[in-house]
């Protein structure tokens, strides 16, 4: 794919003809107007809900959308990082998210068992005892689950993607779909086909404050706060550490990075580790918030989060965060307007619209090759 730009430049008449044939003007207009139209549509949706169902409903849905969006954002970051660095849509990423919730459940059970046998305290009882207990539990549970999920991500890369890094593009995409199915299938086999409780009921309870008739719960604040914390930490990591620099270099030009002494394999493995660990944070937050997980949850969430990544501009971490929150709002308000039936379809249609009119996304960094 390298050298496409030069070929284009060498063939101006052809390029011009193609633009004319494709109605480039319309796409151009759509691309420029896109952010305005998007925000306008979102505001219209919110106003519509507020007018029809009242301000308090709109307000609570706003909170709901932002919390959902925080989780989408955490997953989207994993998509965008992997895409940025090896240009692969990691279809398995959504399932890594689900897997992390299952890991969180199993690790929690293990910890509870240890706690029960040593001190007679289970994880759940410690977490519901008070803020300090909760903090202790989270400080143990988050790193363990994130590490376990991160290692799984690295293993997936090692087994399924590394050998195909230089293969034609179709090959790693197909293995990614395969890995996704292996993960989903093994969760179906081990966890069963219905919703599974994650043993995190009532960890974070109560209302933080009420504004204009809208209850904002501690859980909402926790979800959004954790997501923002993780993403700022990631941004700082990528900006200022050596490994982060290596990642940026690899994303820009893998061969040049290799020539300047970057260990490509290790950098890509680290990308998968971090992406999966962030998905694990999302999975834990999700299971604390909803206390239930189902084997194919990651499938729908995966597409939604990928839409978020594309909306923000694929390869752009800030964009993934922004896209996540926007998609969360669109998801919730679209669902509210269509009484809950069409929220998935609206987001998926959104994906098609974004790719048609503004494939670079809102904050686009990397321009997807126009074939």
């Amino acid at each position, binding site marked *: 794919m390298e050298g496409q730009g030069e070929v284009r430049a060498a063939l101006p008449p052809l390029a011009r003809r193609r633009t004319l044939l494709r109605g480039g003007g319309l796409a151009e207009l759509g691309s420029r107007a896109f952010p305005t139209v998007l925000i306008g549509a979102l505001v219209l949706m919110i106003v519509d809900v507020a007018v029809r169902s009242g301000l308090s409903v709109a307000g609570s849905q706003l909170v709901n959308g932002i919390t959902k969006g925080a989780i989408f954002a955490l997953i989207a970051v994993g998509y965008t990082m992997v895409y940025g660095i090896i240009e692969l849509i990691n279809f398995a990423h959504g399932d890594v998210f689900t897997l992390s919730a299952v890991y969180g459940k199993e690790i929690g059970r293990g910890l509870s068992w240890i706690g029960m046998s040593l001190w007679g305290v289970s994880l759940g009882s410690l977490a519901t005892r008070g803020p300090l207990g909760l903090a202790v539990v989270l400080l143990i549970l988050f790193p363990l689950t994130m590490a376990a999920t991160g290692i799984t991500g690295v293993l997936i890369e090692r087994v399924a993607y590394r050998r195909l890094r230089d293969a034609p593009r179709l090959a790693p995409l197909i293995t990614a779909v395969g890995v996704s199915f292996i993960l989903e*299938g093994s969760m179906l086999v081990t966890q069963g086909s219905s919703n599974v409780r994650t043993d995190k009921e009532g960890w974070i309870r109560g209302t933080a404050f009420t504004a204009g008739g809208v209850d904002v719960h501690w859980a909402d604040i926790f979800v959004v706060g954790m997501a923002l914390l993780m993403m700022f930490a990631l941004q700082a990591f990528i900006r200022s550490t050596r490994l982060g620099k290596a990642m940026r270099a690899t994303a820009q030009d893998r061969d040049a990075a290799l020539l300047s002494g970057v260990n490509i394999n290790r950098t890509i493995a680290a990308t998968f580790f971090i992406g999966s660990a962030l998905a694990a944070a999302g999975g834990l937050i999700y299971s604390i918030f909803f206390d239930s997980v189902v084997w194919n949850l990651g499938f729908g969430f995966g597409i939604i989060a*990928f839409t978020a990544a594309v909306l923000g501009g694929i390869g752009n971490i800030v964009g993934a965060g922004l896209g996540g929150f926007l998609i969360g709002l669109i998801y919730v308000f679209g669902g509210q307007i269509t009484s809950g039936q069409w929220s998935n379809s609206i987001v998926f249609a959104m994906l098609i619209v974004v790719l048609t009119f503004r494939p670079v996304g809102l904050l686009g960094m990397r321009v997807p090759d126009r074939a």
Partner: protein
Amino acid sequence: MPEPVAGLGDVDLPATAAETRAQESSSVYWLLVIGGLMMLLGGWLLPWFVEPTANGIGASPMDVVASPPRGVGSVLVDLMCLSMLGLLAGAAYDAVSLRLRRGQPYRWARQRAVLAAVGMVCTVTVWYLIAKRREEPLFGELSPLALTDNAVWLTLTGFALCCLAYGFRRPIAARSGLVLAAVALVIGALVPLIFRQSIEFISWAAGAAAIYTLLALGLNVVVGFAGLLDLGYAAFFAIGAYTCGSLASSRHGDVLHIPFWPYPFWIILFLGAAVAALFGALLGAPTLRLRGDYLAIVTLGFGEIIPDAANNNAFGQTGGPNGITGIHHPSLFGHDFGIDPRPYYYALLVLIALIIVVLRNLERSRIGRAWVAVREDEVAASATGINTVSTKLLAFAIGAAVSGFAGAFYGAELGIVSPDDFQFAVSVTALSTVVLGGIGSITGAAVGGLLISFIIFWILPHAQEWSMTFGNTTGFTALSSVDYSKYVYVAYGVILVSIMLLRPAGLIPSRARKVELQAGGESEPLAAVRGRA
């Protein structure tokens, strides 16, 4: 498939002994040999797993041990077992010598052919004596079970395939596509006769294998020929099925009225295909300008939107979660198909054969060459004057049309369409089929369709019984309670990953694709220069 891709490759004359051997033993040859041996083994082992106490007499040595035949029968059975053992030992010898010294592994072809022929004759005689003549004095106590009969048929087919493969190696290598098509058609037509005792097997064969094969053939146009990954293929299947459902049921008061033709099913079939193609074009037009992996995720989203829309009763047309019921059954020349799965199966066989002919011709046409060019290098293709967008769009629409075709047929066969039938699993099944068979290979898609359906509808459900029997006989009771039907998803995943890692061109590779996938990366131009791509 050693078919030269027109305009791209040339067939060099074999220079070395190794190349001669490679050409003489095409994948079709191997397919026949391996398939035949598997059937032999299957026929032999079937009674072991399914019913260890079977005491009827058939081809199975187990049965023979259970109640030994007397007189001529014992000689026949002994001879048959000997020839079976000989063929299996020959295969083992091949495998070992291939591994040890890469020497001439394919020796004694004629002797093997004779062995297989002897076995075949013995099997036929044994079967005839049991089934038709009921020659009790020959064989002792008789209780011909359905199972034993299946075992006999498997063994018989196995011997026949081995005969064919070993006896006619050179002609097979020369005209491998034709031979494979002939063998597949004959076996396909015989399947309902072979397994005539178990009706559910026939409905399996009709309802699933053929439909999946059809889906794989269509998806192969998109993924294989044009190199676009379509992950929402089930959407077009659903569109075809729902089109048929709306037009061919009383839901809309039988919209289509043609004089003297009360129910034009065969027109509706093509309407389903046309509507699906239209949707394919609508979806593809804006997104095909983007790179392939974006298309993959867009189609994934589309594949979710369509069942979602069907489920939510979009525009009041789809009947919600219950779907559309009461679709008329088709009829041909006044013969109503009804609910008997057999006519559907034969109709599908004919349709598949027709579609294969059409797709083969397309592959070798100007369009087919344009697809290959776009797949290999879009910039170069557009520089040579190919309109890449419309080329890709055509592949996408043709793939969608085949899917819609299959969907319309499926709807008419079941008499009901509901959103549950078109979930993501269908798309992934089709994709696994294409990948398993060989991306870009029509033969591969057909064989893959059979293999996948065999795994899903036969092996996984039966694995339960087998594992239970095995667990009970060996004492591992844990094996008795495993639910294998849950492993379908894992099986798909393992197929996709392991094929892409170990044999990226699939079981029956198309030649150009094989070179491309193996060479990959930097050596790709080199392969092209050598004229191998």
